[in-house]
C-alpha cells in the first residue's frame, strides 16, 4: 500500500500529464485552440471593452441609485 501523500502526488501527476500529453499530441485541436484564443480576445478585449459597457454599473454608484433609475423608467417619469 502506498502512503496517502504518494497517492495524492501520483494523482496530480496523472492529471498534469493527461492535459500535457493531450495538448502536445493534438492535431486539428491546435488550430481550434488558436481559433478559441482569437475569438475570446476579440470578444473580451475588443467587443466587451469598447462596445459593451454595463450601462447601469457605469452610470450609477450603487444599487439604490440603479433601482431608483429603473423605477423612474417603469413609472415613466421624466
Amino acid at each position, binding site marked *: 500500500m502506498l502512503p496517502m501523500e504518494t497517492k495524492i502526488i501520483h494523482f496530480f501527476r496523472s492529471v498534469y500529464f493527461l492535459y500535457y500529453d493531450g495538448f502536445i499530441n493534438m492535431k486539428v485541436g491546435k488550430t481550434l485552440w488558436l*481559433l478559441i484564443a482569437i475569438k*475570446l480576445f476579440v470578444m473580451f478585449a475588443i*467587443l*466587451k471593452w469598447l462596445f459593451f459597457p*454595463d450601462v447601469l454599473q457605469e452610470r450609477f454608484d450603487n444599487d439604490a441609485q440603479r*433601482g431608483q433609475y429603473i423605477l423612474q*423608467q*417603469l*413609472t415613466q417619469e421624466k
Partner: protein
Amino acid sequence: MEHTDLLVDWSRAQFALTALYHWLFVPLTLGLTFIVAIMETIYVKTGDPKWKTTTKYWMGLLAINFAIGLATGIIMEFEFGTNWSNYSWIVGDIFGAPLAIEGLMAFFMESTFFAVMFFGWEKVSKKMHLTSTWLVAIGSNLSALWILIANGWMQHPVGMHFNPDTARNEMQNFSEVIFNPNAVSKFLHTVSSGYVLASLFVLGISAWYMLKKRDIAFARRSAIVASSFGLIASLYLVTTGDQSAHDVALTQPMKLAAMEGLYDGEKRAGIIAFGVLNSAKTISNDLDPFIASVEIPGALSFLGYHNINAFVPGINDLMNGNNKRGIISIPEKMKLGKIAVASLGAYKNFKKAKDTEHAAEALKVFQAHQKYMGYGYLKKPEDAVPSIALSFYSFHTMVGLGSWFIILFIISLYYTMTHEMHNKRWLQYLALFTIPFGYVAQEAGWITAEAGRQPWAIQDLLPVGMATSNVATTSVMITFWLFAVLFTGLLIAEVKIMLTQIKSGPEGH
C-alpha cells in the same frame, strides 16, 4: 436619449442575430455528445476496435463544433448589460441563480470530463473513459437546462415577487421556477430537437461516405446509430412539442393564435397543415386569413387543450375580449396596466415624501393590477399582437420539417438494418441534403418561441420597448454588423475545418 422604435428594433435584431448564430452550434453539441456516448458504449460492450474508431471520428467533429461555438453565448450576456439593462435589472434575482449554476456546471464539466473524453483514451480505463463521455453528454444537456429555465420564466413568470422599492423581481419559490411547466417542456423539446439535428448530421455525413463509396462499413455503423437514435428522438420530439403547445395555449394564447393564423376563436379549431397567408388581412378587416389552406379539423383544440371540442381563442377574441369565455380585451388590459404603472409611481412618490399611509394604499392598488402592468406601456392595442406571418411560417416550417425527419429516419433505419442503404443513392442524397434543413428547423423553432411571444420580454409584465437601455441606436447598429462579421467568420471556419476532417475520413483522425 429616448427609447425609440428604431433602437428597440436594432436591439432586438442584434439579440436575434447572436442567438440564432449561437443556436447553430449548441444543438449539435447537445445531440452529438449522446451519439458518441452510445457509440462508445457499443465499443466497451463489444470490444470491437472499429466502434472505437467510429466514436473517435465523431468525437473529433464534436470537438470542432464545440470549440467554434464555445462562448458565442457570452455575447448575449454582454448585450444584457448594455442593450437590455432595464430588463437585466428587473429580472436580476431570478436569472442570477440558474445562470450561476449553469456557469459553474459548464466550467467544471468542460475542464474535467471533456479533457478525459478527448485526452484520456490511453490514460484511463475503458469504463472511466465511458463514464466521462456520458457525463459530458448529461452535463452539456443539464447546462442547457438552466438557460431554458431562465427562458421559461420569461415566457411564464412564476415563483417571484416584484419588489416595488428596488424594481427587481425576487425569487420566492425556487422549485416553482425550476419546475415551471413552460421551462420543463421547453427544455425537453429543445434538447430532443438537438438529438434530431445531430442524428441528421451523422446520417447525412455517413450518406456522403456511401455516395463516395468509401469507408462503407464505418458509414453503415454510424447510420444505424443515427437512424435509430434519430427516430426515437424525433418521435419523442412530437410528444414534447405537444406539451409545449399545450403550455403555450394555457399561458400565451396570443402566441398560439399567431402560430396558427387564427383570427376568430372556435370550438374544434383545426390546425393548418399547409397554408398561404393573405397579406391583406389585418385585425380590422374581414378578409379571409388564407389565400389557400389545408386544415385538419379539431387538431388545434386537441393540441392546445388535449380536448377536441375545446374553444381556442383567436386574435380577435384576445384583442376585443370575449365575455362568454372570460377573456379581457387588450384595451381593457391596457387601462388596468396604466393603473398599475400610475400606482407604482404614486407609491414611489408617497414613499419619498414619507407618507406611509398613502404609500400603502398606492401599493395595494399596484398589487391588484400588477399582472397587467406590461399592457400599460403599450402604445396601441395592436402592439400586443406578434407578427402573424413570422410566427405562422416559422412554426409550420418547424413542424413540416420535423415530420419529414421522422419519415427519413424510418426509411434510413429500414435500409441500414437490411444492409441496403449503401445501394440506395436516392436515399443517400436525401440524407445528405436534409442536413441544412435540420438547421432550418432549429432556427424556425427559436423564431416561433421568441418572435411569437412579442411584444413581451417578460410575458404580460415587461414589453421589449421598456426592457431596452437608453443607449445610442448607432452604437447598437455598429455592434450588430460587427457580430454579423465575427459570427459569419466563425461559421465559415467551422464549415471549412469540418469539411477537411470529413474528407480525411475515420482513418485520418
